[in-house]
Every structure is written in structure tokens, then in C-alpha cells.
């Protein structure tokens, strides 16, 4: 169960105009702008649900995920995930969650993937039996047999992403945060990843919060979507209801684009 109530987070961004003169000026006097990344957002995700978290670039999706993972501390608001406050009880909290940041890597660059997995086993203190079962299952479902013994640096993006997802699930987390897990993947890899997430949710009732710009991800995975723009939650409801509002739209992408326009985000 993920409870988020009135969470706000802002960042200070240094800004200046282009050019040498401006650069010199900023040595003495620097202008900062406060960017409200999250503005009193609230939502509730019950156990076992898969939710698509969407919004344009810079809407605050990743910031939300980072707060839910205990990395960032919000200025205001309450978050409770299975009864814990992520940034206060970070170590206990992260033991029960898995996170995939599509734009970053958690695999060790210069050793075979399996070495990274074994290290994660020790870091999360996963018992041998559980680890072997999980590894076997993940290897089969994500088709990793061929690549487990390859150094991470020699993997293609799609292969690496499948390994990243496996790495986040070795400790059997109850909650999975996926921050753009299909970014840059080819069609085959995308389908494999989607298929896997569906199966995982079905079999283990893992709660999944997914951010993506790929509307087919959303269509395949999420029954419920939360739309965020300029740091505010604009819409929270089922995908089918939303579709009914746009009977004339041909594709999901067009529908979302007109949603963005409607909310001017």
C-alpha cells in the first residue's frame, strides 16, 4: 500500500542568459529560480495494483519515484509505504522495493552480469534457495541464459535493460518502481519486458508504479493511470474511462497529446 498525501518538492535552479558577459556577471551575482517539481500531490495505490504514471517531460514523475524510493526528502507532505516513511526508514524500506531507472545502470561495468547479481544477493542478504529460485525464474522469463556471463559493457541496450529489471527483482520486492523501463528498446525487447511485468504482477501480486512516454506500455500494463503536469496531479482514473472521453481519437498517443493540451502542460 502506497499512500502519498500533499507532497511538495522544489529545486533551486541557477539561470543566466547566454554569453561571456553574463557568465562573468554570474561570478558575483547568481540568479536562482525555484522550480516547483511537485506541488501537493496525493494518491493511493493498493497492494497488487499496476499504475501508469504519465506526464510530459519535466512534470515531476522521476522526482516522485525518487521520493517514494527514499532518495529525496520532500519539503512537505506525508508518504507511507507499507507503514514506513521512505526517507526516514530508508534501509528497512528499500529492502522491500525494487527500482529500475531506465536511464541509469546498476550493473557493474567491467564484470559479467552474474557477478553483479551475486553482489546484490549479498547486499540484500537473500538466502541461497530464494536467490537461486529467483535467478532461475528471471533467467527463463527474461531470456538471460546467453548473456549472464557477458560483461555488462558488452551488452546491447535491450539486453542490459532486461538484466537491470532482473537485478531489481532478485530480492523478491513487494513493490516495483519502473522509471522508463522501455526507453530505447526495440520491439522484441519491449514486448518481452511488458510480458514479463504482466506475469510478475499476476503471479506475485507485485505492486507496480510505472513511468513511461510509451503509451503502448500503458495500454499493455496499466488499468489505472495518474497524469501529472507541472508538479500537480491532474487526473487519476482508469484507462477505459479515459478512452470513453475521447471516442474520436484514433491512437492513445493522440489522446494523451490532447490531454496535455487540455491541461496546458
Amino acid at each position: 500500500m502506497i499512500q502519498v498525501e500533499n507532497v511538495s518538492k522544489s529545486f533551486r535552479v541557477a539561470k543566466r542568459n547566454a554569453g561571456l558577459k553574463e557568465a562573468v556577471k554570474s561570478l558575483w551575482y547568481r540568479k536562482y529560480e525555484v522550480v516547483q517539481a511537485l506541488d501537493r500531490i496525493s494518491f493511493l495505490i493498493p497492494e497488487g495494483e499496476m499504475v501508469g504514471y504519465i506526464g510530459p517531460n519535466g512534470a515531476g514523475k522521476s522526482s516522485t519515484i525518487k521520493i517514494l524510493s527514499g532518495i529525496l526528502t520532500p519539503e512537505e507532505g506525508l508518504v507511507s509505504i507499507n507503514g514506513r516513511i521512505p526517507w526516514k526508514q530508508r534501509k528497512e524500506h528499500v529492502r522491500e522495493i525494487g527500482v529500475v531507472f531506465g536511464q541509469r545502470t546498476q550493473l557493474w561495468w567491467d564484470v559479467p552480469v552474474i557477478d553483479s547479481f551475486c553482489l546484490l544477493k549479498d547486499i540484500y542478504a537473500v538466502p541461497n534457495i530464494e536467490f537461486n529460485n529467483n535467478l532461475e525464474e528471471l533467467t527463463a522469463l527474461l531470456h538471460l541464459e546467453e548473456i549472464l556471463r557477458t560483461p555488462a559493457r558488452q551488452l546491447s541496450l535491450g539486453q542490459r535493460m532486461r538484466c537491470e529489471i532482473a537485478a531489481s527483482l532478485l530480492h523478491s520486492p513487494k513493490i516495483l518502481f519502473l522509471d522508463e523501463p522501455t526507453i530505447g528498446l526495440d520491439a522484441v525487447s519491449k514486448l518481452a519486458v511488458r510480458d514479463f511485468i504482466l506475469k510478475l504482477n499476476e503471479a506475485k501480486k507485485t505492486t507496480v508504479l510505472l513511468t513511461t512516454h510509451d503509451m503502448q506500455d500503458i495500454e499493455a500494463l496499466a488499468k489505472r493511470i495518474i497524469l501529472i503536469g507541472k508538479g500537480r496531479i491532474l487526473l487519476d482514473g482508469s484507462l477505459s474511462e479515459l478512452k470513453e472521453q475521447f471516442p474520436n481519437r484514433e491512437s492513445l498517443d493522440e489522446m494523451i497529446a490532447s490531454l496535455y493540451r487540455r491541461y496546458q502542460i
Partner: protein
Amino acid sequence: MQKYISLLRMKFIAGIQYRAAAFAGILTQYAWGGMEILIYRCFYLENQTDFPMQMQALSNYVWLQQGLLALFMAWILENDIFEMITHGNVAYELCRPCDLYNMWIFRNMGVRLSRAALRCLPVFVVAALLPAPYGLKLPPTPGSAGLFLLSAILGFLNAVAFSMLIYVSTFYTFSIQGTRAFCLAVVDLLSGKVIPIPFLPDGIRQIVELLPFASMQNAPLRIYGGDIAGPQAAQAILLQCFWLAAMILAGRILLRKALSRIVVQGG
């Protein structure tokens, strides 16, 4: 604890893969060590009475320093960690049920140990074959060998704790160029890397000996050959313990402060 040991092992395994780097390192160490010995030999032959160390103690100092360079130098830093901080991969590190300070300090130990493991033996073997008083000799007594071991471990930990301060400072400065340049110039001089601390002028020398930098390599390298012995050795080791505790405490406090205001940039 197991998880931190695994991290250390992982870094160690990754580190010993780099054979060419180790080979180049060993050659550099021979050349550097030999050059230093030749220079000090000139001074020694010129004026033995003003020479502040025994020639043999100095040779031991130089060869040990070359062989164990990776353990004691402040500037053996891991680019991975800087990259993690400046590019935001630190997000993944914070998703682990681990203490970030411990994770990084053990990683560092792994890197340094792997480098030293590949480089020390070839340096020591060749240095041991050189004629006295220019080669590496065994410590005069089993007692000084034991004290050296203790002091070397502390010196290693002091160097690692100091490099942790540099990593943590990256959270505040976003760039390592400044700190790295500072380390090369100032720490090398104050730790006894450029010239052994006994060669510094009186007045300055006494102060430098008390600084944390002297605890990194000055203490173990001089205890080995008996240049520091008895109550002086005990004092040096106590000072090492003090600086180790102080630097770990400072590193932990600064890291906690940095994490409370962390911003993970981009995406």
C-alpha cells in the same frame, strides 16, 4: 558486514583484471624508486652527519613506499564514485539497504588492495636484491615488524578515510579538479611522499608530524626500519588512531548533511 566484504571482493576482482596498467605501474615504481635512491645517495655521501635518517632506513622507506603506493596515497581515487555523484547514479546506491559511507569505504579498500597486490611483490623482490644500504631489508626486530604491520593497516585506513572526505566534498562542489590538484600538491608534501618528513626543516617538521597526512605513510614507513621506535612509535600509532576516528566522523557527518539536501540531476 558480509555485504561490505562482498563489495570489497568485487572491486578487488575487477581491479586485478588490469594487467597492462599494473605492468606499467611496476616499471614506473622501479624507475622512481631508483631515482630517489640515487639522489639521496649523493646527499648522504656528501654530508653524513647532517643526514637525518640512516641510509638503510631511507632505502627501506623508499622501496616500501613504491611497493605499497596504492595503499597510502591520498590521490588513489575512484572515478566511478565521482561519476555516480555528478551524474546521478548515486540514486541506485541509495536504493540499497546499506550505509553509503560503508559501501564506498569498502569499495575503495578493494581498489587499493587490488592495485597493491599486483604491484608490491615485483617491487619488493627486486629491491631486496639490491646491495645494502640501497635495497630493502627485513625489519630489524620481530617487534618492529609487528608495529609496522599495525601502523601500515592504520595508515591504509587513514588514506581511505581521507579519500572519503574528497568524495563527499564532490556533493558540495560538483567538480573534483580542485580537490584533486590540492591533494597532489599539498598532501603529497605533508604526508612524506615527495620527501620523507625528517628532511623537512625543524619547526615545520614537528607540526607536519602531527597532521593527519603524516598518519597515512610517514608513520608506518619509518616504523619499519626502526627510524621511529619505542615510545615514539606508540605515540605515532595513537595519533594514527586519533586521525582515523576524526576523519571517519567528519566524513559521516558531511555525507549525512549532503544526502539530506541531495538533488539527483537529470531524468
